[in-house]
């Protein structure tokens, strides 16, 4: 077996491990939530974590499955993964997303500071939730948009 095929097999094993862990964690979250519903905790967060892990595992399997028995395809997938232009594009996207994330976090921090001394209104629970969701989502959107843009430009 070539080094490239071994590398693909390793990625597939990782995918299966994530998928299995995700299913176990999600099932555990659902079971605990139904058996211990009287406890004042929201166990959906455990189920959500399980779904996230399973999703990561599934994405690994989808990405590397077609290359598992084809040496040439394994080599191609490996080259695409380590492709220097793609690494540059991802690094640039990450850099842009980082600055956007920093800007949003700093804005939130400043708002909280000004709200504490009465200069700005306090953020309600819902508004805070939407702000935090935006602080996660907006840098992610910037990251994806930057990758798409640079793939066309570089």
């Amino acid at each position, binding site marked *: 077996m070539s080094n490239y095929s071994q590398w693909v097999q390793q990625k597939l094993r990782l995918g299966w491990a994530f998928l299995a862990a995700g299913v176990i964690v999600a099932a555990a979250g659902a079971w605990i939530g139904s058996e211990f519903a009287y406890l004042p905790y929201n166990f959906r967060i455990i189920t959500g974590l399980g779904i996230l892990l399973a999703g990561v595992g599934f994405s690994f399997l989808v990405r590397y499955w077609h290359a598992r028995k084809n040496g*040439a395809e394994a*080599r*191609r997938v*490996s*080259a*695409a993964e*380590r*492709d*220097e*232009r*793609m690494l540059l594009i991802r690094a640039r996207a990450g850099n842009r997303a980082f600055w956007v994330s920093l800007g949003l976090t700093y804005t939130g921090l400043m708002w909280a500071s000004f709200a504490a001394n009465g200069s700005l209104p306090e953020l309600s629970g819902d508004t805070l939730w939407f702000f935090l969701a935006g602080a996660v989502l907006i840098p992610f959107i910037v990251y994806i948009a930057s990758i798409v843009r640079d*793939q066309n*430009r*570089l």
Partner: protein
Amino acid sequence: MKNRLEELRSQRGWTQQELADQVEVSRQTIISLENGRYNPSILLAFRLSRLFEMPIEDLFLYSPEEENHE
């Protein structure tokens, strides 16, 4: 940066994918290199130089004016 990749690749009858496989990059990178949109790392430049058996300066055509526009 301008280069002679497309010309040299065509002379050898290779497809973009075949060239990409030989220097272990994606086909998109070869397309970008040939269009002059992307400048390779020194390692990739050396790999291409060895593959085509010619000095880097003959493969990639450096011009200071172009650098000022980047």
